């Protein structure tokens, strides 16, 4: 697999495998990431401080006082060459509840109208697909997931919202996501997920990891409120929505 090395200042560099969203590129990224983490743990990458896997590239952060770009690349070359043969990560499977009703779904009607289908069909399409968690980023625990069914694809909102509520389930440009935090945002809001995606007190603060697979299960507004209350009082364990548990890359790191 071909790749490019891109400079990201004096303290990071990016290995880019491609410019599009494609599970084959993700497989190479995750294979390289896992190889680097293993080498780091064995003490074979002095000065490398952390890595950030994304859809199509891996950014390697290093301490410029301890090493430099050329020294890091020298060690990475064989790992990069081997990463092209990487197979998709064996992530965990989740079934997360989503309320697609009322004020939890402020853009549902407009999305249905724009796409020329009914709101029921939007919900059926969105919840009838299993998504791959391509990467986490933008906000702590924010999962970029894909791919949306063709019929649900539309660009970002022309007017981004100043305030997207935490828990919002959103779509844009072939992807779906859940906002773990209130933030500005330009995606279309289809529903609300009551499960907290990020909790600094957990050993693995992010619920989801790159390579995981997620399915959404529609719940009513009443069920959603009950789940929220149960989660807030710790009567409900967020791990109950885990379908299967092979070891995720995130926990191995």
């Amino acid at each position: 697999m071909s790749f490019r090395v891109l400079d990201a200042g004096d303290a990071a560099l990016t290995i880019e495998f491609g410019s599009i969203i494609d599970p084959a590129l993700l497989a190479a990224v995750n294979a390289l990431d896992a190889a680097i983490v293993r080498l780091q743990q064995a003490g074979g990458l002095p000065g490398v401080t952390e890595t950030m896997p994304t859809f199509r590239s891996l950014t390697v952060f290093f301490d410029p006082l301890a090493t430099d770009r050329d020294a890091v690349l020298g060690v990475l070359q064989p790992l990069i060459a081997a990463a092209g043969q990487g197979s998709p990560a064996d992530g965990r499977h989740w079934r997360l509840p989503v309320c697609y009703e009322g004020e939890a779904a402020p853009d549902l009607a407009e999305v249905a109208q724009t796409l020329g289908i009914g709101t029921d069909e939007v919900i059926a399409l969105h919840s009838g697909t299993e998504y791959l968690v391509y990467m986490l980023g933008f906000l702590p625990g924010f999962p970029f997931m894909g791919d949306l069914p063709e019929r649900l694809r539309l660009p970002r909102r022309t007017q981004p919202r100043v305030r997207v509520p935490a828990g919002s389930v959103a779509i844009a440009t072939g992807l779906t996501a859940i906002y773990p935090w209130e933030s500005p945002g330009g995606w279309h809001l289809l529903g609300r997920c009551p499960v907290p995606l990020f909790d600094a007190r957990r050993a693995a603060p992010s619920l989801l990891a790159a390579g995981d697979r997620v399915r959404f299960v529609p719940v009513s507004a009443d069920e959603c409120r009950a789940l929220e209350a149960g989660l807030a009082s710790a009567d409900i364990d967020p791990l109950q929505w885990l379908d299967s548990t092979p070891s995720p890359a995130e926990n191995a790191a």
Partner: protein
Amino acid sequence: MSPRTELEILSPGAFASIQDGGRRGHRRIGVPWAGVLDRRLMRLANALAGRTEDAAVIECFDGGLRLAARGGAVKIAVAGDTVLEHESSEGRRPLAPWRSVTLADGEQLRIRKMDGGRIAMVAVVGLEPPAVMGSASTYVRAGLGGVDGRALAAGTRLALTADAEPWGSDRVLTQPPAADPAPIRLVPGPQHDHFRPAALEALVGGEYRVTTEADRMGIRLEGATLEHTGAAEIVSDATVPGSIQVPGAGQPIVLLADAQTAGGYPKIATVISADLGRLAALRPGQALRFAAVTAAEGARIARAAEAETQALIASIRTLPPDGIDLVALYTGNLVDGVVHALAAEYRPLY
């Protein structure tokens, strides 16, 4: 048991938060480093206070911070080009910055304003906030670190541990670093090929100005428009502190400590780590220029900057135990009761 000693925030000024070296190792799950905007200032403040170099400090923006010792004496040091005032029952007196001072119970310290730059670091003996994911740094957006994940507010009381008292003599940095007006250095890329060649020339050759949108997340600049060759969009990838993102309108945004960890705008260049603190200290309206270097040159500059910082720390001297502040003595007015009407501390507040 003696009453617990606290540091009370009487006023946070424009923005003040608890920061340390940053929350490292979690960018892969979307958690920015946060941490101080100028590591050198943090290290100097802590060295002046006799603390470890990356102990948690109070980072303050644009002055206005007012602190008081409660329940006991508190030892503090301030790094940054500030105008300081010490207030006790005997009244107010100006205090030289870049030194440590002990506030007796009830006494106050005010950063009246910044003489230069925007950032000051206040090191406090006994300030040991709990680490969240490995760091005490405040990251407001996700409510991590500091005091309940929030910026410091008037009335906040920071409990101090009882360590290290008595503290001995105060310390001073006799020759603080001068403001450096040289261009901010950047490394072209990672997506400079998404721009017309003239764009990088414009960025490096032209003058840019800091807008009012400048905070811990980043700094929006205005200046020559940087034209993309195609869409002003990429498939989101990692950002780093220093990334210069260019959205469709062609005006650059430099990302800092609290910035999002991934973004979909092409990044024309990256400011080198040694110059990020200098950039963050620029005020809205202030002009700046950029100069291009290679990544390897950036690393050499980082090592040279580290040597300078270590030399500064090594130059810190103990103030005489009789309390005479030689810096104040040599730079101030020697006749008691006469004030220097033109001195910075007597200029009107703006």
